[in-house]
């Protein structure tokens, strides 16, 4: 147990017998050998793999795949957990286990969609602002500041209320509130890389803007963006679930975790299982992504270990 997180301790100075010591710092993905020394990262990756596999394979591994849709089993209403129904059944008799697994597909689709949209928009805007500076930077950053002045969830709620309630619209609303964070991150990265000696060196060697951006900026900013994306995956899961819980996301027959909690809320005192398992699913998925994000942070930047 003593060695649990030992890689985070002060690195022992290892004398290099060939003369000058070579700096040892993890600049690129340091490989699985190092990853194994971060227990939370591993637990996170295993959990995430289980969640993703279970939801992808849901149609084949769930006992009642038809329960993911709009079916009613009047004879099976609110059965407590049993061998036949591991997580019990809901108010219209659908198998909660089946619905929880199918729910993962919705959540994962939302996470992927939101991350793609917001990262692409945010990165382009942020990199451009940090790279070119000047008035473009000023304008872009004022715009993102306005967005950031708002609690993201509130903005998403307002947006989702304005669009018609559906999972896709919820994802769009979240993406719309999320991109400024990437813009700011990318801008900071671009500005700091721009100050590095190698950026100047590239200019002196004749590199144009495009080359500087593609060959130097993007690869060096990618680590921070990567870490941020894994941490954000957790935040998006939570936001998406909250929107659905408020009735602003996926609608009834769709098995969405937040929605399932909302539907189960009035019955929760008597049938605890209808809200417990969907909620646990949200928690476990968010924990998995947070573990991964935190672990990656430690791998890439062991000194800081921000969270």
């Amino acid at each position, binding site marked *: 147990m003593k060695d649990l997180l030992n890689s985070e301790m002060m690195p022992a100075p290892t004398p290099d017998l060939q003369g000058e010591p070579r700096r040892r710092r993890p600049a690129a993905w340091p490989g699985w050998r190092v990853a194994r020394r971060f227990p939370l990262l591993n637990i996170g990756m295993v959990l995430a793999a289980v969640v993703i596999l279970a939801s992808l394979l849901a149609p084949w591994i769930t006992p009642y795949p038809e329960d993911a849709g709009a079916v009613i089993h009047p004879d099976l209403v609110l059965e407590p957990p049993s061998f036949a129904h591991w997580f019990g059944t809901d108010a219209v008799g659908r198998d909660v286990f089946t619905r929880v697994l199918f729910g993962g597909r919705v959540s994962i689709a939302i996470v992927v969609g939101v991350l793609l949209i917001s990262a692409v928009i945010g990165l382009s805007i942020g990199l451009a602002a940090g790279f070119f500076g000047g008035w473009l930077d000023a304008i872009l950053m004022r715009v993102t500041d306005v967005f950031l002045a708002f609690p993201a*969830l509130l903005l998403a709620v307002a947006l989702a209320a304005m669009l018609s309630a559906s999972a896709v619209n919820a994802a769009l609303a979240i993406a719309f509130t999320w991109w400024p964070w990437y813009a700011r991150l990318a801008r900071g990265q671009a500005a700091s890389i721009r100050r590095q000696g190698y950026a100047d060196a590239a200019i002196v060697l004749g590199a144009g803007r495009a080359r500087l951006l593609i060959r130097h900026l993007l690869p060096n900013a990618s680590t921070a963006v990567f870490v941020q994306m894994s941490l954000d995956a957790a935040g998006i899961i*939570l936001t998406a679930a909250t929107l659905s819980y408020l009735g602003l996301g996926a609608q009834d027959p769709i098995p969405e975790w937040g929605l399932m909690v909302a539907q189960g809320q009035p019955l929760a005192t008597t049938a605890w299982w209808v809200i417990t398992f969907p909620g646990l699913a949200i928690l476990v998925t968010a924990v998995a992504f947070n573990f991964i994000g935190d672990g990656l942070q430690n791998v890439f930047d062991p000194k800081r270990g921000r969270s």
Partner: protein
Amino acid sequence: MGVVVLTFLIARLIPGDPAVAYAGPRATAEQLAAVRERFGLDGSLWEQFATYLSGVAHGDLGISLHTKAPVVEDLFRVFPTTLVLVTIALLLAAIVGIPLGAMAAHSRGRLGDLVAKVISILMVSMPVFWLAILLQIIFFSRLGWVPVAGEYDTRLDATSPLYTVIGVPVVDALLTGNWVVFRSTLAHLILPVIAIAAYPIGAVAMVTRGTLLENLGEEHVRMVRALGFPERSVFARFALRPSLNPIIALLALVFAYALTNSFIVESIFNWPGLGNYAVKSIQSLDVPAILGVTLVVALIYVVLNLVVDLVQAVIDPRVR
């Protein structure tokens, strides 16, 4: 200013006709026109915006469609309650989160660190609505330890009437020395506060750990160790103080987050605050009210940033 434009656009773009929402589905065309005129909904978007802007400048946010009272009055009524709730939750987050993070930093790389980190991550990964419902079921429905719903037991009004001072029962009771009601308000506060504080506790603990570790690796910490200062004061005085600024910045950020979470928690615990008001405004497409709520939130954000800058300047001379 940007915030005002954004809120206005969002509110105006919400589909559905607010006049219909106000007058009811069976209203006649004349009735609708009258409503539109009364609320300034008949002009072009620009005219509406201009009217609205001049209103904001004069402290007039229009009249709420669902409470039919001036939005400003509504906000003054509901906001203090939420402010008290969120502030208490954040105090709790600081009181629990900072020591938790400090403990993690102290036992860096050992079991205590891992435990603290897992706790923190669980806290920030918790869906707040689910946590609120669970707390309600476990501690109220099952165990019956604490009451839920509302700010205090209104039956007490008969025996110990509460005098209004600022309109927030817990503060009023404290100020007027009404201890019976005060105890009731505290009991009612416990669960909502825990639900709101969960995320901030985790976030504060993680940031505390990170900045503390960063400072512990600094030369100035090595220097005071070399001067013979005991570990306790190395930690509490020399390492923690320069770490406070990032923690304070985080608290401000988390305040905004907690405020939004309080909306959900308030509706679950039936708490008559800003959140409840906001949820009802959205449901009834109450444009002036929605605008008012968003403006208040944005205003809090601005004030908060100001406070953070001031506090940081006091703590760290480099910021001045």
